[in-house]
């Protein structure tokens, strides 16, 4: 049994290392400016934990396979100096890792969006996302809860007849954004907690009812992606998603004009 078990552990460790090394399954490609920091941080952590993982598993396998076959075990109740040294080493490594992620985190959350950022409102509900662009005036018209009506397409409860600022607002079911321009999303939920997750953007943020949560990012590669919900929000949770379209600036302008025409 000793050989079977130690062989199993070595084999499992080897398979795991190969799967990570060859990147058989991996992150989707990064398409945002802050994503590189996330990926670097992940790589660094993977290196450190990978070494610890391999070391621990191999030592375990060795102990199992090469235990004393005769006589008594060694009488050894511990070695305080060694234990303290290892604890300090572990603490330094782990805290070092945590601190090294500081800059990426700060960039995502400690600083606000740049002034020239395109601001878009995101409203989540069971089980859809709606997006609102402020239009040429750059102002979001006020929202009236009483007017919210999905069946008539008034997802944000706008009243263009009374509120001039609402007249040029553009409401869509697709999040279209220009490439290489800072985007600020204002996340709101109408009913339960949802989440905004685009794996390629390396962004995930819960959308909490009663709060407006801003996030910002810059997309660097055009293409069609998906926004998915990651916070259990009810029976349609698995199907709650919206298309994300990253376009070149002129294409974005054309797209937005087309959306405006459909309002």
């Amino acid at each position: 049994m000793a050989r079977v078990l130690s062989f199993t552990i070595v084999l499992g460790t080897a398979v795991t290392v190969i799967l990570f090394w060859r990147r058989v399954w991996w992150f989707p490609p990064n398409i945002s400016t802050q994503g590189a920091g996330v990926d670097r941080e992940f790589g660094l952590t993977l290196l450190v934990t990978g070494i610890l993982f391999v070391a621990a598993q191999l030592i375990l396998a060795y102990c199992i396979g090469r235990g004393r076959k005769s006589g008594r075990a060694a009488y050894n109740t511990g070695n305080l100096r060694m234990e303290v040294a290892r604890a300090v080493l572990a603490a330094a490594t782990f805290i070092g890792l945590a601190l090294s992620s500081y800059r990426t985190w700060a960039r995502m959350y400690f600083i606000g969006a740049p002034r020239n950022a395109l601001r878009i409102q995101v409203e989540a509900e069971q089980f859809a996302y709606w997006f609102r662009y402020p239009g040429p005036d750059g102002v979001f018209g006020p929202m009236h809860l009483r007017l919210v009506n999905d069946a008539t397409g008034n997802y944000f409860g706008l009243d263009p007849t009374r509120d001039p600022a609402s007249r040029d607002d553009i409401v869509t079911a697709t999040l279209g954004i220009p490439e290489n321009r800072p985007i600020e999303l204002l996340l709101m939920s109408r009913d339960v907690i949802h989440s905004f997750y685009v794996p390629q953007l390396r962004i995930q943020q819960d959308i909490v009812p009663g709060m407006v949560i801003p996030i910002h990012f810059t997309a660097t590669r055009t293409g069609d992606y998906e926004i998915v919900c990651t916070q259990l929000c009810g029976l349609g949770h698995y199907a709650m998603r919206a298309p994300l379209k990253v376009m070149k600036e002129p294409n974005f302008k054309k797209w937005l004009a087309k959306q405006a025409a459909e309002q």
Partner: protein
Amino acid sequence: MTPTHSQAIPRKAARGFLRKYVFSTDHQIIGKQYYFLALFSALVAMLLSWLMRVHLAWPRLAIPGLGELSAAGAPNGMMTPEYYLSLLTMHGTLMIFFVLTTAPQSGFGNCFLPAQIGADEMAFPRLNMLSFWLTFTSLGALLSSFWARGGPATSGWTAYPPLSGLGSITGPGEGWGQSLWIISIALFCVGSLLGALNFITTTLDLRARGMTLMRMPLTAWAWFVTAILMLLSFAVLLAACVLLMLDRAAGTSFFIPAGLIVSGQMIQGHQGGSPLLWEHLFWFFGHPEVYIAILPAMGLTSHLLSCFARKPVFGYRAMVWATIAIGFLGFLVWGHHMFVSGMNPYSAFAFSVLTVVIAVPSAVKTFNWLGTLWGGRLRLTTAMLFALGFVSIFVSGGLSGIFLAEPPVDVQLHATYFVVAHFHLVMGMAAMFGIFSGTYFWFPKMFGRMMNETLGKIHFILTFIGAYCVFMPMYFLGMAGNVRRYAQFVDPYLQPLMPLHRFITVAALGLGAAQMIFVFNLFGSLFGGEKAGENPWEATTLEWVAASAGKDLVVYRGAYEYAVPGKEKDYVMQNAPDASGSRAEKGARDGNAN
């Protein structure tokens, strides 16, 4: 009247079947009751996970028999998404509360905490019985929600409001199902609080003469620290459940914000409550809870590695302090579940640093387990195999916690299968390995018979390989952005991952099937196992002291005196007097001199 010890005995004496086996105040009977309650819950929860896995891998497959079992949830055997969420909620709740909290702590702890510290009974036997029956009632309330209108709760074991706070308008299962869930958990809280009170008092007050805290077996230490965690964290969960129930039933606004529109309906009467408040209260309980699940298994692993490597625990004191440190730090890190919740990003960073600090005592423990094995003479009994498996699985699951402790990396991995892999390995499977090793180890003491070792070893190797095959691939799923708690995978970017999902499902079916060997072995050995001797494993702790040794135990040494040089046998029992005059023994003799 003068109280004497002989008076304690009639309490245990049989007074009819009902008093002896059902409403018993005997800690061993209660421990076994807890154990079998956990076993039942584990089987139910495993069955639910099978259904979920099959549905995930083959979403269009009609599961035979399921349509008859639950016509509403799975018409013609095709699972609806709400039924999937019900199964998910029940699986999580059953496993976390009724298996991982119940079996290692309340089950083994009740059976062996008094025995290991040399007490006849728990401090409050009747309270003990009440704890069990509260837990039993709680399980009944939870399972009864399968028959409630709309089915069981669908908001997961975390029950985040407003989903869980507004009633059936937010979805099926959010009416009676969710109410029953809250009632069940509140009852479980009360039962656990009373249990914890009993454990702590027993450990503090009822230790045998000479059993100093620093001579307690690491299992007893683990139960003690776990009980403290339970005492403090379940009180908070109980408070949170009261608030959530008031929000649902009385129209208060602790967690429910104003101005919600659900399914086109304006929700009236609620003001500016905060869902984040629930998250804070819940995770203040929830994070200690994962240590509640894992600490007893850690203690047991230390115990078994020492016993079956025939070697003292490497760094006993460090192990004790690591246990205490984990218990203490466990209360300071709840925020790492909330990095993407909309919580203050500055506090997120503080939680991040505290979280990696808690990895240090875990690392110390792992070092010391390897240190205990190093140079040992291993006896690979099934119990030992599961303890070794625990170390391997704990490392594989625990290291991924470092990724999740770093906020920017967590942003990418949060709520994906990476997290599922992490907690299933580090807390789910590892704690299950603890339960298995405890069963194989203590079965002779609990039932007077040995379990079949051959079946045990087959069970072990299948479980070990199965656990890795099921949960390691989930890391890759998570990295690829596969979100958890999805009833189906409809997103195009998830389609390439379907083969991996099918592999996991097949492995999960195999892993589950392997558990049938365990169940067969357990019940077979219960009735037909080989009769066990007094101390079949040649262990040192007091639960293995022969009943004939009398009740007045005196402890002379620490719990792990294996391979002591100069001794005749390679182990010395804790209660064995010794005249060699070592410092420890001299102290005990002084204490005994009166």
